[in-house]
């Protein structure tokens, strides 16, 4: 080969290298771009749900209308009717309106506004017979108008709010009576049919209990199975078949586990439907192979010299494994477990089959109370027609992603912190 040819060949090789680098960078950029678009989309849609609009209403706590006096017991307050004073206060916003429009006025605040007035009175009993400024949740429609999600310029008959409501609303804005603040009730309320009242507390608690049950079941079973298979089981046909099937189990579509849960846990053992207990059991089945596989890999990665060292000292097999091998495999096992659990946290399909799709408007207190979970909540709200649920859907996804990121970061932290460098 002549010198010129050699230089040509060399140039060609460098060119190929540059081309390869370019394709690599391009694909990384594309992946990041898609992720970025997804996150921007979710955040721009969902961030609104973390804020809400309230109207500051001057309410006269008339003791005659309430039927209360300064010495009334909590029970009497509980039973008192606050609707009337609320209605009076709303009517003040637009005096002398015809009867027909009064209903529209009342519709401007949330359906639970009277309850909010009651709650306010409960903590401020001194306001009896006085006028107090009470912040009340606005109806979802006006909330959406304020956030700019509802266009104002379409014909009235195609809107969910009337010109009359809009006029009063703008009037109140100009009087600084409309406040926009952080929506704590989104985090503390249970699910509701009213978008302005709906919150994720019930599905958060449901997810917590479900993952807890899943962890309690799958972690010890998974670890013991992995240790036995890796360290103690004789290597023969049976263990080989088990190994193949554990791997197969990890590849089974999750909805199949849901069918199994429905058929066995609900219809055969009659465990309570729609509960985190059953949900956790189903997810534990799904998570088991996802714990066994990384745990076995972590055990395999422990150098045999450690086992020999302990055995040569006269340690029994169990002592060798428990004292020296398992502690070294723990970081890998734990990070595998956390990743398995975070997959379980995002799982929807199997839970639909065991009835965790029910509408739950109370926060579950135990794992045997019916409840929903975060991904199912996303699914439920995404099907709702009200505009308010659109942003709540995205906001729930934000919360879900937040927990997933926390769990995965913890897994990475564990892996890096306890990673052993073998000599």
């Amino acid at each position: 080969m002549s010198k010129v040819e050699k230089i040509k060949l060399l140039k060609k090789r460098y060119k190929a290298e540059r081309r390869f680098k370019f394709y690599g960078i391009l694909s990384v950029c594309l992946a990041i771009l898609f992720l970025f678009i997804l996150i921007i989309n979710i955040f721009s849609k969902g961030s609104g749900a973390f804020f809400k609009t309230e109207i500051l209403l001057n309410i006269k706590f008339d003791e005659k209308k309430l039927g209360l006096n300064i010495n009334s017991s909590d029970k009497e307050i509980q039973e008192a009717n606050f609707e009337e004073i609320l209605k009076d206060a709303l009517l003040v916003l637009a005096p002398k309106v015809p009867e027909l429009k009064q209903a529209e006025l009342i519709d401007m605040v949330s359906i639970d506004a009277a309850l909010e007035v009651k709650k306010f009175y409960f903590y401020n009993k001194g306001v009896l017979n006085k006028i107090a400024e009470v912040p009340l949740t606005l109806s979802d429609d006006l909330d959406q108008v304020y956030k700019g999600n509802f266009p104002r310029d379409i014909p009235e008959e195609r809107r969910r709010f009337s010109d009359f409501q809009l006029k009063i609303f703008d009037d109140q804005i100009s009087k600084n009576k409309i406040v926009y603040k952080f929506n704590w009730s989104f985090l503390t309320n249970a699910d509701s049919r009213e978008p302005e009242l709906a919150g994720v507390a019930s599905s958060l608690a449901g997810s917590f209990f479900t993952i807890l049950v899943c962890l309690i079941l799958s972690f010890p079973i998974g670890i013991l199975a992995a240790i036995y298979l890796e360290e103690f089981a004789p290597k023969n046909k049976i263990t080989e078949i088990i190994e193949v099937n554990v791997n197969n189990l990890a590849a089974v579509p999750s909805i199949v586990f849901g069918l199994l849960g429905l058929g066995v846990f609900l219809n055969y053992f009659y465990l309570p439907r729609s509960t985190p207990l059953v949900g956790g059991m189903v997810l534990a089945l799904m998570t088991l192979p996802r714990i066994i596989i990384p745990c076995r890999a972590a055990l395999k990665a422990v150098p045999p010299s450690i086992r020999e060292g302990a055995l040569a000292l006269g340690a029994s097999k169990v002592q060798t494994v428990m004292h020296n091998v398992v502690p070294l495999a723990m970081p890998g096992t734990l990070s595998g477990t956390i990743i398995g659990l975070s997959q379980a946290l995002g799982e929807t399909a199997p839970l639909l089959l065991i009835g965790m799709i029910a509408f739950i408007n109370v926060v579950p207190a135990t794992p045997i109370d019916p409840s929903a979970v975060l991904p199912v909540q996303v699914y439920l709200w995404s099907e709702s027609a009200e505009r308010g649920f659109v942003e709540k859907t995205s906001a729930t996804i934000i919360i879900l992603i937040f927990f997933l990121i926390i769990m995965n970061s913890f897994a990475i932290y564990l892996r890096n912190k306890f990673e052993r460098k073998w000599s």
Partner: protein
Amino acid sequence: MNEKIKISTRNLSVFYGPKQALFDINLDLVENKVTALIGPSGCGKSTFIRCLNRMNDVIDLCKVEGSIKVDGKEINTKNTDVNLIRERIGMVFQKPNPFPKSIYDNVAYGPRIHGLAENQEILNTIVENSLKKAALWNEVKDRLNQPGTGLSGGQQQRLCIARAISINPEVILMDEPCSALDPIATAKIEELIDELKKSYTIVIVTHSMSQAARVSQNTGFFHLGKLIEFNLTEKIFKNPDNKMTQDYITGRFG
């Protein structure tokens, strides 16, 4: 000669599946002497010493046939408690393999699992004495709580020796203990072996002819799974009976 035989093997054969690795080995190990085993790679030296503390049991396909007697008592039976055998016959491996624990815990592990120390004070004494015997005490006495894996290679190997002697075994098997070490660390280990033979019977597998000549009193030459020659070290290196031994120690093959 007033020599006591510590371990003797008769017709010892080892099979890895269908492959035979050792053929009818008859060998006597003398108490408080260093016996060196030399031979080319794959000749079965390591397989042989792993029989002596039944470490070959760990390997699934491995089958050991023949007789191994320790103090005249047969140990190659199904009923023999391997944990007790390994407590009496310690082992140091080719690559230093300290546990990923502190230096202290590395040495204290053996006494702990065998219940040799009733209280912390006795355990401290055992750890200190073991490290002193392994000539490591002065280097690590101020950092017993640091991980054993943080020591240098030579120190790690001495830590492994301290670990092996912490349970006061009768025999120490060393499987090429210096192959991963530099010459200075090797010299230290060799010095140590010389010291240790006063209290223990030592078997050392080595690739270094000079090491065998320096540290051992008896030497066995293995080739292709057979014990070719076994004699006093001096005799083996100066005037071997077998032509093959002669060729090997003069570097003509292997």
